[in-house]
């Protein structure tokens, strides 16, 4: 029902949405969420690939899933650090608009 290709399409759609969110939104929190979305899009692809290989009964069967688990863990840590940085930005800049962060340039 869910072929590899369709999973990958969904994954690609999610990834693109994430990229758009990162690029297009001002609010750092939204940007953070979009970043998570990108990672999760890839997770979907990984799991899909893993599933596909499992169907072929290859040795690499579940690596995709393991990879995805690792990514989830990493993403959690990243979110923690990210949020604390957002907090820092709010304290120093009284703003969480990414476009305000432009004192350094050139």
């Amino acid at each position, binding site marked *: 029902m869910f072929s590899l290709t369709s999973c990958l399409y969904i994954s690609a759609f999610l990834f693109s949405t994430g990229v758009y969110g*990162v*690029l*297009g939104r001002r609010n750092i929190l939204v940007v953070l969420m979009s970043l998570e979305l990108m990672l999760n899009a890839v997770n979907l692809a990984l799991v899909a690939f893993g599933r596909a290989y499992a169907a072929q009964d290859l040795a690499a069967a579940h690596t995709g899933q393991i990879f995805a688990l690792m990514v989830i863990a990493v993403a959690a840590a990243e979110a923690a650090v990210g949020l604390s940085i957002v907090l820092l930005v709010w304290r120093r800049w009284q703003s969480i608009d*990414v476009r305000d*962060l*432009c004192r350094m*340039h*050139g």
Partner: protein
Amino acid sequence: MDFNPSLLALIPILPLIGFVLNGCFGNRMGRQFVSIVGCALPITSFVIAFRAFQALRGSESEAIRHTLFEWIHVGSFQVDMAFTFDGLSAVMCLVVTGIGSLIHLYSTGYMRGDKSYARFFAYLNLFTAFMLMLVLGDNLLVLFVGWEGVGLCSYLLIGFWHEDAANCDAGRKAFIFNRVGDLGFLIGVFLIFTLFGSVNFAEILVGVESISDVTAPASSLNSAMPMWGTVAIGTLITAITLCLFVGATGKSAQIPLFPWLPDAMAGPTPVSALIHAATMVTSGVYLCCRLMPLFSLSPQTLGVIAAIGACTALLAALIALSQTDIKKVLAYSTVSQLGYMFFAIGMGAYSAALFHVVTHAFFKALLFLGSGSVIHAMHHEQDMRKMGGLRRQLPFTHLIFIIGTLAIAGVPFFSGFFSKDEILFSGFFAAFHGHDGHVHFQDQLFWGMATLTAGLTAFYMLRMVALTFWGKSNVDDKLVDHVHEPGGWMPFSLAVLAVLSVFGGILNVPELLHWLPFVGEERTFLLGNFTGLHHAHTGIDLDALHKLEWTSLIISVGVGATGLAAAWYLYGPGRALLDGFVNGAGKKLVRISENKFYIDEVYQILIVTPFQFASYVMFILIDRFLIDGVMVGGSALVVRSFGEFFRRMQSGFVPAYLLTFGCGALVLLFIMMSLLNGAG
């Protein structure tokens, strides 16, 4: 007589030692030390040179040679620091040391009051050393050392009183004019080395003798010739001799490089006598005589030399007519006489040229030193218009001047008579008999110019004497009482030179006049025979020759006498006539002469100013603007602008950063995909 050849080296070295001693210690050791060192060493040189001369006369050999050391030796190019003492060198050497010594002696009196006494003698000694090197040099390069060295001393001595900027300018002018000549000289040397494979005189002459056919290609003479092997030997020799002659025109003040010599009178008068009359300026003539066989191979060059010589003689004489500075008259007279000498060389009469060098050295040194006495007496007043009537106060000097004038005017049996007559005769011979049996118009023209010059010479010399010594006194009242005859060694030098000026002609009496007292058949052409230089006239029977000679002699004496008479008349009883001419019809002519035919101005307008202007424009336009501004600064600016552009691209906005990132990745992806698609 035994003569140790190594003594030859001492001849130039002794004055050099004098230079070092006077230069380093002169100021501390006092005047007496300076005078003794300064005079004794050139005199010793004279003695050695005289001994060498005697040895040479007594021996069979053509020359005494001594090699001091190997100077430059690279591959096939070898030059030694070596000296040759042959007939020609001997004559020059004796003149230089002899007259040089006399002038040194004279200077002890003349320069007595000068604060830079030691420096003066140091320079004078240095000059003597270089001049001796020039005439003794065994090869072109040693000669060139002397050649440049005397130029340097001339520069230093012209600007001796360096507090006055004009003197230094004159010195610089002399040096630079000489350098232009030296350029020709150098190229000549290069050509000689290329053609003959050596710069040694002896070897060059051997090479010249081996030339049988001047139309043969140069490679037949020197098979190793790297270039111009197909050009005819004669063409190359013409080029060589012309180049060397360019050098000679610089040193010997010929057209077009003569304007420095009159300016050189800025130096102390003994310097003018020694350097700018007796010795240095004749080194061009010496060079031609030294390479006589080479010059003789190129009739074209000789033609040019004759033309330049005659023109210079006439032009300088015309200018001398109206000069009011006593030394300037003598200076132009020197230029004119040097023109004579080159005219002689152009006519192939080398011995006459050398003879005139010698006699000219006598009487011109005499005249200069005499004028020095006048100037000394007049407290450095040189303008003849402020003199006049000095005969009473300076009878001795007056006598000296008369002797000098008679000598230079060619009055029979004075020294100048013999030499000038020989030159004019060589011109006459070429003009009306012809070397090859043909008579050429240009030869007649040159002879006419030379003869005219003889008359003019007599005229302006007597004019000078008249203005200075005769008539009523125009001397400044304050000076009148102080005018006095020179003392010390000065009269001695003058007297010796006067004697030489009177009797110097005996050195080379033509065969025609062998009946004169103290002469005999066997004593004619002493100088010519001793030096082995050519006479102009060969291949003609004696009677015809005598006939021609008498004609020429009578014409030249006549012209000289006319000149003297005219001067006597115009500056005596005919004064009004002269004034009328000067202020009337001849006003423009006189002005041209007074302004030296505007030659300095022409040089200034045609060469100096454009050159300076061009240099300045190039500096601003090419160096500063084009190279430094546009090329160097421009490339730096371009790089920095790029840097600024890329710096500005970093806008500081996170979305922009992300976009850069994303676009970069996308572009890479696209390229990648197109490459992949293209490949597969």
